[in-house]
């Protein structure tokens, strides 16, 4: 789950990390001057006109009106953040994430923070563990050439590490990490991603950003072949096989283990939103899922959905025999393999 800037900064502040003074912008300003920032889950806000500095009440009202209705890369903000202006001396980059290959928490830094971070090289990285922030903070102060900020950076790393662990974060990226002209170190912007899997121990998690959908992904809205499969690997493999056969897959869909008739029927209805689909390939290798449930959903879809395209059905695994019987009564053929299902699909496209 990727948080919006103001949500991420609230978490940083609770962890003892300095963030700019701020308020949620509505009709009246709380303080001026201020910078009004669109809260959308994407980058490039500045270039798109989603970040505006305002000095007067008139400028404030105009900026709030404009930004509230300004879509950025398809996102229109529900919240606007108003922040104090910082007198910036330096902009640095600092992030903390999980290195999947070493199963360690790692920190990355760059002397040149700011908007063009992707094109910077010369990143430095450290492994973070309990209690090594004194040493890492010292090294970071040397790297940033900020010896007078050593204690501040040691505290920052300790707070950031504890924040990362206690919030089940996958990524905290502070960019820029601002050093002000009066030598304050403040998180100018922050991207934070939390682990959806850990929601069971965070009953307080309530964010604007919704849990991203991972099981249904549109690949090409104009595709001619829709796919339904179970398991991420098999669903990806079904898409690959469709494309490998020279057809255009519209979507990735993993109905997951334990899918039932209602959830599968709901998935069929979503596939009907693609205008050019000529055939739906259903590829189920049932372990925990049951083939007879899938068969019932197929039969329900045929009777309830108008203009349902032809189906190329391949089923295998748990309760296969029951599914064969159910589908035979409806004259729906089951293909013995994915290869055969794709051959059948080709005839419909």
């Amino acid at each position, binding site marked *: 789950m990727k948080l919006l800037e103001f949500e991420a900064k609230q978490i940083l502040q609770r962890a003892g990390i300095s963030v700019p003074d701020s308020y949620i912008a509505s009709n009246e300003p709380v303080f001026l001057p201020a910078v009004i920032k669109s809260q959308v889950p994407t980058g490039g806000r500045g270039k798109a006109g989603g970040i505006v500095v305002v000095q007067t009440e008139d400028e404030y009202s105009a900026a709030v009106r404009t930004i509230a209705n300004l879509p950025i890369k398809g996102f229109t903000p529900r919240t606007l953040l108003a922040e104090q202006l910082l007198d910036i001396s330096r902009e640095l980059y600092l992030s903390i994430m999980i290195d999947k290959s070493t199963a360690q928490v790692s920190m990355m830094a760059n002397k040149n923070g700011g908007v063009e971070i992707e094109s910077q090289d010369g990143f430095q990285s450290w492994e973070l563990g309990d209690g090594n922030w004194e040493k890492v903070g010292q090294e970071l102060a040397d790297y940033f050439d900020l010896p007078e900020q050593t204690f501040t950076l040691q505290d920052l790393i300790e707070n950031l590490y504890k924040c990362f662990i206690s919030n089940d974060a996958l990524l905290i990226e502070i960019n820029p990490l601002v050093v002000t002209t009066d030598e304050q170190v403040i998180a100018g912007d922050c991207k934070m991603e939390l682990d959806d899997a850990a929601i069971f121990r965070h009953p307080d998690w309530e964010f604007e950003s919704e849990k991203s959908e991972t099981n249904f992904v549109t690949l090409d809205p104009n595709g001619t072949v829709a796919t339904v499969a179970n398991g991420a690997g098999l669903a*990806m493999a079904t*898409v690959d096989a469709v494309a490998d056969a020279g057809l255009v897959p519209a979507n990735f869909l993993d109905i997951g283990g334990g899918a039932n008739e209602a959830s599968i029927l709901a998935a069929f209805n979503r596939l009907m939103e693609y205008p050019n689909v000529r055939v739906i390939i259903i590829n189920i290798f049932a372990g*925990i899922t049951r083939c007879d449930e899938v068969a019932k959903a197929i039969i329900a879809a045929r009777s309830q959905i108008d203009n349902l395209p032809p189906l190329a059905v391949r089923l295998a695994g748990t309760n296969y025999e029951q599914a064969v019987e159910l589908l035979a009564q409806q004259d729906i053929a089951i293909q013995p393999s994915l290869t055969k299902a794709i051959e059948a699909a080709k005839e419909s496209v």
Partner: protein
Amino acid sequence: MNESLLTGKNVIVQGITGSHGAFHTRAMVAAGTSVIAGTSPGKAGQDIDGIPVYNSIADIQSDMAVDTSVIFVPAAHAKAAILEAIAAKIPLIVCITEGIPVHDMLQIKQHLEKSGSRLIGPNCPGILLPGQTKLGIIPASLSLPGTVGIVSRSGTLTYEAMADLTERGIGQKYVIGIGGDPIKGTDFVDCLELFQNDPDVDSIVMIGEIGGTSEYSAADYIAEHVTKPVYAYVTGHHAPAGVQLGHAGAILGGERESAAAKTAYLHEKGIHTTNSITTLVDLMS
């Protein structure tokens, strides 16, 4: 990892009284696995088809030795279950549970490194040695004893490759699903080493995915150490960048993590590759 680690006769199931735990315990027994006991806190004294249920592994160990634990405990309690098995010094731990938080796996990895235990998974279908033993949920009815070693990150593609081989009369010695999470106990290289060192194995099927880089270390290992033919498919050729597909590990972080880049690298290292699961077994004939 060697064959004897996988064929221990004293298997327990953690979470044996849950619906998945009980269902798959019966399926494991039907496939020839010797399940001697199970745990479920607060349910000591019950039994599943005569298999005794205990409150904890320590309680089981006061009655009998344990070689292997298969874990079906829900995600919220899976960390405690795995750590319990590590503390009990169980040599092989197979965790089927899906959806364990990444931070829990970080802690588990640190405990594992200091232990003598091996973890397979989590978020995996487990291990099947056709005709011998089944530790997990791989459908044994679709397997055939033989000489191929299969290792896969994806559960359903493990079954797909296995069933395809069986249908063509090609049997398997090992079928191992290592799991779809980004941080896991056992990776390709451990399984490749097992297959290379076992004289009963004559060829290897490897199924990778988008996301992460473990296919690269596998390719390097194969080039240096594996003399048996390896047939590989990496799924997700049409995955969009930055979008998670299904489970946690399947997210395309950068070009290097793509199916195309991984396939090209495997091919360069002398591994037989294909771009579709439908033609993976064709490569072998």
